[in-house]
């Protein structure tokens, strides 16, 4: 696979690939071109402009087309990448348009985009150096090309707002774009420092908004191809069960039915990219396929996992609470001994259940397999993943696989794993049928077969000293993942607990990773969303037991930790937190680190005597180090509040007999507009050399702030979710 690459010099490669930027055009003035995302060969869509590097081309009219290797799932990737490059290139923002980059080129020809995944609130946080550098490099090469033509030094050339100038010379960038592509710089330029920004830091509307108000934005589920057929699929309701039999005779004669195909899990593949045993009905429309599938008798062998339920996992957790686990973090010494000997201890058990992603765009994929190539439309958060998956499923050369990056109807961490099985299904079906196949999971299939957020049970104990502050702290987390693997980052099971900032002199954090049959994966703010609820309520329990104000406790216990102090002091300044509201009203605070950002929340609630809860307001204070787009950041923070309050207040999957009893939005409840609290966003930025994420950290502090407020309103401590299932009445 490297042969072709080896034969081509970099220069030749750039020429060969110029114009193969691929993807769809969208921007401020050309929404009509959106259709290119599902055009038969969008990867061959020519761009008029000269390619200066893989990231950008410049048209004769000065339009700068920026190729974005990340996915747009609503978090603002197209805008963020374009802003960072436009900042360095120094072009008018109105001249910029964004397209999705060509992943076939990336995977097979040198991985020029370095990172293509779009998860972990990392695009700006971790990728800004190389993205901004691509823009800076292009700018300097334009200056070098102009300098050569004008017979001046590059340092004499000014590049500003799309115009190159030196003395009496002046020209638009486009004039030197082709020459710039040939330039090799003796040394690559450094990126700008924040005090030099002219575009970054300004509230900037997202470029993808206009195509999302008229139905023209193309999602994977909208793919339409000549000769395409549709598949509805069903996998064993108990994951890893076997398909015993199905009777396709009952439905074969129905109108539009093309085929009924058994799908088999791939041996040895049980991770994020697996495919369960199941059956697919293929028809000329999806509704015919789905209706026939509903009518077809299917028998399953559920296997031994039918014994597993939320209750059985809770019993296992209670057993493991008594047994030492793997140590994830330890500070000081003998925390358990100090707790045993202490006269003032606080102990509590907390629980968060399974949650599902339930992205509004149901799990789907379209694959077209021919002798020459395979084309893929898959709503995953890293578009190189479906490319490699399809190559693997078909045992084909990745150079022959082309992915067409669509808009993604929500991702929330599940676009990395939860949507990969369907891509294998579509590839397998298209190979067998010899025509393009779109597979759509019903919402019921989506809820039950998604890879879920792992549940966690945690016991916390603390010993308080004479000043009412803890001198020893112990936590033991029990969480259930597929195969019991510690799968997503260090200590996700007790992330936010083991990593808490509080300066307790003696701490010991343990966890049990328990094997379960339910496939699990990341879910927006993994670990922090589950465990923020746990640790930040237990902080209030410790503070109140020690006769401390909960906000003052947090300020005291993070003394000297600049990013935390900045958030907490700002929260104290803006939120008006108080603990003396009349019964039935309460305020609560919490602060959680997630993806290197520090976010504090202050929630105000009211609870009627009969226990009716209203979350009235959430004030967030965010410290992400830096901020490139306050408008998009505010949107992400508001959305994150809704995201995690949805689960904490209403969510929770009900696991019984090895399968989920929830199947659709009537049995998996999510926040609706009338339940959404007012959200007030404040930024308190350290601007101290570190960058935090923005897409996820707004979620974790919100539910514990709400639960802490409920305690002040009612005197009731809610240690598990969904909160609305608890009796919150008071008298």
């Amino acid at each position, binding site marked *: 696979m490297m042969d072709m690459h080896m034969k081509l010099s970099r220069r030749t490669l750039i020429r060969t690939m110029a114009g193969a930027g691929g993807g769809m055009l969208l921007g401020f003035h050309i929404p009509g071109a959106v259709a290119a995302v599902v055009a038969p060969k969008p990867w061959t869509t020519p761009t008029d402009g000269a390619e200066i590097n893989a990231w950008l081309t410049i048209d004769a009219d000065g339009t700068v087309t920026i190729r974005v290797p990340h996915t747009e*799932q*609503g*978090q603002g990737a197209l805008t963020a990448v374009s802003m960072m490059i436009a900042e360095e290139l120094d072009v008018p923002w109105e001249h910029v348009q964004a397209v999705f980059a060509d992943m076939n080129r990336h995977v097979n020809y040198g991985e020029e985009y370095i990172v293509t995944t779009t998860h972990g609130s990392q695009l700006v946080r971790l990728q800004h150096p190389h993205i901004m550098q691509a823009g800076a490099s292009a700018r300097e090469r334009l200056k070098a090309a102009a300098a050569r033509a004008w017979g001046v030094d590059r340092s004499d050339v000014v590049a500003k707002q799309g115009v190159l100038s030196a003395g009496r010379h002046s020209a638009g960038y486009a004039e030197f774009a082709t020459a710039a592509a040939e330039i090799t710089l003796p040394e690559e330029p450094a990126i700008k420092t924040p005090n030099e920004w002219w575009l970054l830091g300004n509230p900037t*509307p*997202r470029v*993808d*908004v*206009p*195509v*999302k*108000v*008229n*139905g*023209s*934005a*193309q*999602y994977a*589920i*909208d793919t*339409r191809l000549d000769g395409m057929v*549709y598949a509805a699929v069903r996998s064993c309701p108990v994951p890893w069960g076997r398909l015993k039999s199905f009777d396709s005779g009952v439905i074969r004669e129905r*109108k539009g039915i093309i085929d009924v195909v058994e799908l088999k899990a791939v041996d040895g593949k049980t991770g994020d990219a697996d495919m369960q045993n199941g059956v697919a009905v293929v028809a000329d*429309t*999806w*509704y*015919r396929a789905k209706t026939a599938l509903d009518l077809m008798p299917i028998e399953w062998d559920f296997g031994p996992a039918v014994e597993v339920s939320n209750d059985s996992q809770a019993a296992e957790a209670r057993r493991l609470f008594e047994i030492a686990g793997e140590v994830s973090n330890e500070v000081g010494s003998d925390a358990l001994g100090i707790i045993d000997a202490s006269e003032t201890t606080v102990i509590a058990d907390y629980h968060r259940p399974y949650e599902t992603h*339930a*992205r*509004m*765009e*149901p799990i789907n994929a379209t694959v077209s397999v021919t002798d020459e190539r395979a084309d893929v439309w898959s709503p995953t958060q890293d578009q190189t993943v479906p490319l490699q998956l399809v190559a693997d499923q078909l045992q084909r050369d990745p150079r022959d696989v082309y992915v067409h990056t669509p*808009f*993604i*109807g*929500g*991702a*929330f961490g599940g676009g990395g794993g939860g949507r990969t099985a369907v891509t294998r299904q579509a590839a397998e079906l298209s190979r067998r049928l010899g025509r393009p196949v779109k597979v*759509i999971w019903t*919402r019921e299939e989506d809820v039950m077969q998604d890879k879920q957020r792992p549940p966690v049970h945690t016991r916390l104990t603390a010993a308080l000293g004479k000043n009412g502050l803890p001198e020893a702290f112990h936590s033991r987390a029990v969480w259930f993942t597929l195969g019991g693997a510690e799968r997503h980052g260090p200590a996700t099971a007790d992330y936010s607990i083991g990593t808490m900032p509080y300066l307790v002199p003696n701490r010991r954090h343990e966890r049990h990773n328990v094997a379960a049959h339910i496939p699990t994966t990341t879910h927006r703010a993994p670990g922090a969303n589950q465990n923020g609820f746990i640790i930040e309520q237990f902080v209030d329990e410790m503070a109140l037991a020690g006769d401390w104000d909960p906000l003052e406790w947090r300020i005291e216990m993070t003394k000297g930790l600049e990013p935390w102090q900045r958030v907490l002091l700002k929260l104290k300044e803006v939120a008006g937190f108080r603990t003396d509201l009349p019964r039935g009203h309460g305020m609560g605070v919490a602060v959680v680190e997630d993806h290197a950002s520090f976010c504090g929340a202050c929630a105000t609630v009211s609870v009627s005597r009969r226990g009716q809860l209203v979350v009235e307001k959430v004030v967030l204070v965010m410290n992400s180090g830096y901020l490139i787009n306050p*408008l998009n950041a505010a*949107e*992400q923070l*508001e*959305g*994150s*509040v*809704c*995201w995690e309050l*949805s689960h904490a207040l209403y969510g929770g999957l009900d696991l019984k007999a090895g399968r989920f009893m929830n199947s*659709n*939005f*009537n049995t998996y409840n*999510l*926040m*609706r*507009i*009338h339940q*959404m609290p*007012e*959200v007030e966003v404040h930024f308190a930025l350290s601007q101290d050399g570190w960058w935090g994420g923005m897409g996820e950290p707004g979620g974790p502090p919100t539910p514990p702030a709400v639960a802490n407020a409920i305690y002040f309103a009612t005197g009731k401590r809610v240690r598990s979710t969904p909160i609305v299932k608890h009796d919150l009445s008071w008298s």
Partner: protein
Amino acid sequence: MAFTLTVNGKTHEVDAEPETPLLWVLRDNIGLTGTKFGCGIAQCGVCTVHVDGQPVKSCTTTAASAVGREITTIEGLSDDDSHPVQRAWIELSVPQCGYCQSGQIMSAAALLSRTANPSDSEIDSAMADNLCRCGTYLRIRKAIRRAAEMAQSPGGRS
């Protein structure tokens, strides 16, 4: 069975079982993919369209029941994104992933066509069937109020 539907002012001859939900006829037979599939049981509202001006969940509305009636989808709301709801949605940067927004916009447009100045509780009850997983509710509320202003200002339309 073939029947005729009038969508966005255009007639379409459709070959489908009459009980087929309007949603799938719009998407798969007619090719108007702006209307989305979300749940299939009228719980999320991403499939909302107008039938004779009334908002309906097209996933549980049979195609046959829409015969002889005026169907409007997101593609037919305006030719140029000039509907006040669309303009307000852009101005207040409402969509994130965008998948639910066709349904949100159709519900909001129907609300404003019957209530020029909706109160907060009228907005909440008109929009309560429309789920948004990205959590854009606050901006939806503001944008509906803004659209109401736009519709009543010179140059506005409803």
